[in-house]
């Protein structure tokens, strides 16, 4: 047999093409005669639109069309609520172009279509909008206090959703507790900042009635459904292609953004292709963001530190609209107890409208916030009870033989139960402590202090529900001419390397080189069953669907090969692109088997001769295809998980706070993680490192700032500090592999893992470093030098 591809460090198939600049992103798609769109965006966080004067813009040379809400016909309605939930009352979604009111700086008010983007921007500046500015409240806590200005008149309290979930019997457990730890923690707003901003291009062919849309989206099938429904077209007349996409991180799973409807609309109206390539400023003010939550969390414990009950109440900033429902807050609330047994939980959140860019998932999706809350609370509990921070965790972790650990009463973001399926939590904790040098650290810290250096150590555990349904599909076909294997699935890649890992899965089944497996994704004309890329689900859901499908094709191939080679099926081996008679050198190429599996009349090549009706290889009595047979070596299958599968990990860091600059220097960082069976450790490490880099951004650097009037003040790459490579330390990654019992491959998701636990790890370490100098708690991120100075109280 060939060596197993699953689990090996296969190089990424896409890299050579991307590194040579041969990628084809939306802006690279040749669209002769294309027009370009630009938007007029609200300069106010809350205002009433009194008038819009487009006359000057319309008169400018090169301007083809200007649209306001009055010019877009049936599109002038609130955009769909993607994920309805009963906890929301009258959920607010925005209109493609604002009518009467604007609700955040950046909201689209008018669209210009012109010969090029330069003219389109000139014209957008020439549009005169008269606003009556209204009062705003940016502070989350004050926004829910009586009398605060409302973002929507329909919601005078600014509360978009109010939801409580309970597991066990928290009342009774809290009464029995001997100790209560309470803290308030806060995580601030950030943004995904993908390398490629969002993009949409559309072409409408009036003759065929076909609308083709290139969209840098994570959800082309969803976008197609939305477009077909809004334009009243048959789904087959709408083709959505997600070409190469330069990063998504959740920002591109949300749809439709206004431009995703307006660009196709203009292409249909004008009869010429139209393109919108979002620029960086627009990405900061027009594309969704995530993170701000304030938690008040309580741990009710015994004197020994066993946590009997957890009570958490949090405010979740949902921005000006809530198109994605409560997904982010729901993930946060159902992840709140982390890896700990904690059998009794009461968690309530209120999602709050604020006059800011709408909030939808960004890599992590609520988990960094809940991880920050529980892990900071655990540290505080440890301090208060005089127990080591590692030990307090050890006393509460779920043991290996206690899985599956169900949290009855909590429903995850897919509406299914929360049940931690497998893990080796204790081993992970021991491993991280071992690698970081937990036990010897006190001496190291003391020695450093003697030299006037402030060192600290921190650790944090996370769990991550991954691989959400409802389902994905796979379609596999062995190509009769080249023997290459074509694989389709409905979700799409934004740089992750799906093409490589899915190829590994298929290669193992069919005995072909990984490079001969060609993944086709992101084109609804090629394949259109499935959902989208989100929630660390590609490997779990598409991976298993493709695995199932490849096994079906394998069976077919073996059957056909046995027929051709005139041996028993058990004697057929698939390897090196051929079917072999085991133990001999007799073989037949997969291409020939694929050709022969398709009964032919015309012998267009040598292999095809074998498939024609007078050839001996196609021996059969009666019809060439039996009733239950399909031509070719091809199959389709689907995988639908019964519930999320829970990955987990532990991070630990040793940091130094520089006394002069108050800069946090990360000396050592260890990440132990477990995403079940790894298909490709190299790609897993890439995901973990990328997530970690974003986690470090959130822990130390990134915060979207709004002034009191709701203007973003750092909406650019100069002032919004995304760490450079120079700010990201070397990280030691250690893998554990506890298979998931919930799917045949035993895999769990890893896409978001890296970012989740960085905040509490760093905060704990900084706190540890500065306590001896009178530093207080660090219960908010990002931790900037200014925040450290304030904490030390020596300003």
């Amino acid at each position: 047999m060939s060596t197993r591809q699953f689990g090996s460090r296969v190089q990424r198939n896409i890299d050579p093409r991307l590194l040579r600049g041969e990628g084809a992103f939306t802006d690279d798609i040749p669209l002769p005669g294309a027009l370009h769109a630009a938007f007029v965006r609200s300069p106010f966080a809350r205002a009433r639109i009194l008038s819009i004067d487009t006359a000057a813009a319309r008169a400018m040379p090169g301007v083809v069309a200007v649209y306001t809400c009055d010019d877009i016909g049936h599109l002038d309605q609130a955009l769909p609520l993607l994920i309805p939930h009963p906890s929301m009352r009258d959920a607010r979604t925005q209109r493609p172009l604002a009518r009467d009111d604007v609700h955040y700086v950046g909201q689209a008010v008018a669209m210009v279509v012109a010969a090029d983007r330069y003219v389109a921007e000139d014209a957008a500046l020439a549009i005169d909008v008269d606003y009556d500015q209204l009062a705003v409240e940016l502070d989350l806590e004050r926004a829910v206090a009586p009398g605060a200005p409302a973002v929507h008149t329909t919601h005078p309290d600014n509360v978009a959703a109010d939801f409580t979930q309970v597991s066990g019997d928290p009342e009774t457990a809290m009464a029995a507790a001997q100790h209560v730890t309470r803290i308030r923690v806060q995580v601030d707003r950030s943004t995904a900042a993908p390398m490629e901003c969002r993009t949409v291009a559309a072409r409408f062919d009036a003759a065929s009635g076909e609308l083709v849309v290139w969209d840098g989206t994570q959800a082309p099938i969803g976008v197609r459904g939305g477009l077909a429904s809004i334009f009243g077209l048959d789904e087959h007349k709408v083709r959505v292609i997600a070409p190469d996409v330069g990063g998504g991180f959740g920002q591109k799973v949300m749809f439709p953004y206004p431009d995703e409807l307006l660009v196709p609309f203009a292409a249909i109206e004008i009869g010429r292709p139209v393109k919108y390539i979002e620029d960086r400023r627009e990405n900061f003010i027009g594309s969704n963001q995530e993170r701000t939550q304030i938690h008040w969390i309580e741990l009710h414990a015994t004197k020994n530190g066993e946590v009997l009950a957890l009570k958490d109440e949090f405010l979740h900033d949902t921005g000006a609209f809530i198109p994605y429902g409560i997904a982010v807050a729901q993930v946060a609330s159902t992840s709140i107890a982390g890896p700990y047994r904690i059998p009794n939980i009461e968690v309530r959140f209120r999602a709050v409208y604020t006059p800011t860019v709408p909030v939808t998932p960004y890599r992590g999706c609520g988990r960094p916030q809940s991880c920050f809350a529980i892990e900071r609370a655990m540290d505080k509990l440890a301090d208060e009870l005089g127990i080591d921070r590692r030990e307090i965790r050890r006393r509460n972790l779920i043991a290996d033989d206690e899985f599956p650990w169900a949290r009855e009463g909590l429903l995850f973001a897919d509406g299914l139960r929360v049940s931690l399926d497998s893990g080796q939590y204790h081993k992970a904790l021991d491993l991280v402590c071992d690698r970081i040098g937990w036990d010897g650290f006190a001496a190291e810290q003391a020695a450093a202090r003697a030299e006037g250096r402030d060192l600290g150590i921190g650790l944090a555990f996370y769990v991550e529900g991954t691989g959400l349904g409802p389902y994905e599909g796979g379609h596999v076909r062995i190509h009769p001419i080249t023997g290459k294997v074509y694989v389709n699935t409905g979700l799409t890649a934004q740089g992750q390397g799906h093409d490589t890992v899915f190829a590994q899965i298929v290669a193992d089944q069919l005995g072909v080189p990984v490079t001969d497996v060609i993944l086709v994704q992101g084109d609804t004309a090629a394949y259109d069953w499935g959902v989208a890329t989100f929630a660390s689900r590609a490997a779990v859901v598409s991976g298993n669907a493709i695995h199932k499908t490849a096994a079906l094709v394998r069976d077919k191939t073996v059957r056909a090969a046995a027929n051709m080679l005139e041996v028993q099926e058990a004697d057929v081996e698939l390897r090196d692109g051929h079917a072999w008679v085991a133990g001999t050198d007799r073989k037949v190429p997969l291409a020939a088997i694929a050709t022969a599996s398709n009964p032919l009349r015309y012998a267009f090549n040598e292999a095809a001769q074998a498939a024609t009706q007078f050839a001996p290889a196609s021996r059969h009595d009666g019809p060439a295809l039996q009733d239950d047979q399909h031509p070719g070596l091809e199959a389709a299958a689907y995988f639908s998980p019964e519930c999320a599968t829970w990955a987990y990990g532990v991070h630990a860091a040793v940091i130094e706070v520089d006394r002069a600059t108050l800069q946090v220097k990360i000396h050592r960082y260890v990440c132990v993680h477990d995403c079940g069976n790894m298909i490709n450790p190299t790609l897993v490490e890439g995901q973990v490192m990328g997530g970690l880099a974003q986690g470090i951004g959130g822990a130390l650097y990134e915060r979207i700032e709004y002034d009191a009037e709701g203007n973003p003040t750092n909406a650019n790459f100069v002032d919004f500090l995304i760490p450079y490579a120079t700010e990201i330390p070397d990280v030691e990654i250690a893998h554990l592999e506890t298979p998931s019992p919930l799917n045949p491959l035993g895999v769990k998701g890893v896409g978001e893992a890296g970012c989740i636990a960085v905040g509490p790890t760093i905060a704990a370490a900084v706190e540890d470093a500065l306590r001896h100098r009178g530093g207080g708690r660090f219960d908010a991120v990002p931790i900037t030098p200014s925040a450290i100075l304030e904490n030390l109280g020596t300003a």
Partner: protein
Amino acid sequence: MKPALFEYHRAASVAQAVDLLAEDPGAMILAGGQSLVAAMNFRLAAPSRLIDITRIPDLDRIAVTAEGVAVGAAVRHRTLERHDGAHAVNPLIRAAQAHVAHVPIRNRGTVVGSLCHADAAAEMPLVLLLCDGWVELEGPGGNRRIPAEQFFRMHLTTARASDELATRAVFPALPPDAGWAFAEFARRKGDYAIAAVGAIVQCDAGGRITRARLAACGISSKPVRLGRAEAALAGGTADATAAAEAGRAAATHVDAADDSIATAAYRRHLVAALTERVVAEAAARARRGTE
């Protein structure tokens, strides 16, 4: 983020550049474009005409003479940074240049462009001020030189008239017995400084400070001399106590407000720490020089 319509002219001589500038009140000089083009893309600047000066013969010269290092207006940061002759007479230049943006930006951005841009947190204006250098300008009315003390007016504003071209800047040589040091902190490597401090210190044989010059950027609306810190040092012994005292005095020069990168309180803390560090380093160098 596309610029408004503009004309582009490539000037062949200083005279032509000055003429082109005089003709159109909306015209602007284009040097390395690393600040101006970004501003145009954000439509913070909308010049009707750009006059590219980077191909003007001789403007890309660095001349090291008795008066110091004369840097032509087309000299890229990176060229000056790597110039050994310049480094030999004024090592502050190389020390500061290492903090100006990233190598690809230094490959295109010009030193004189940086002075004319006059960002309050930029390093090269600080160095020019610290070394008591000047900028030479050419306008319709002839040429003049403006000392650094007067050149920088406030953030993004200089004493250059809008019809003048800066042709070169001169960074005087450091006295041979002077100790020097430069320190900066930015949150990310290559970013504009939250604060940077430079020092030139001379000591007598007994280790007493005979002359101390200190300047900082990032803490005010323009680069500033740290006069109170200089005064604290003058005539004293160059020891740790003196350095710490200079640091405290330096902090009193901070008048920048809180911004999204740092609070004013933090800038005070930082400039004190950086001053302490550069004073100690410069004094150590000066002592080594007099030994």
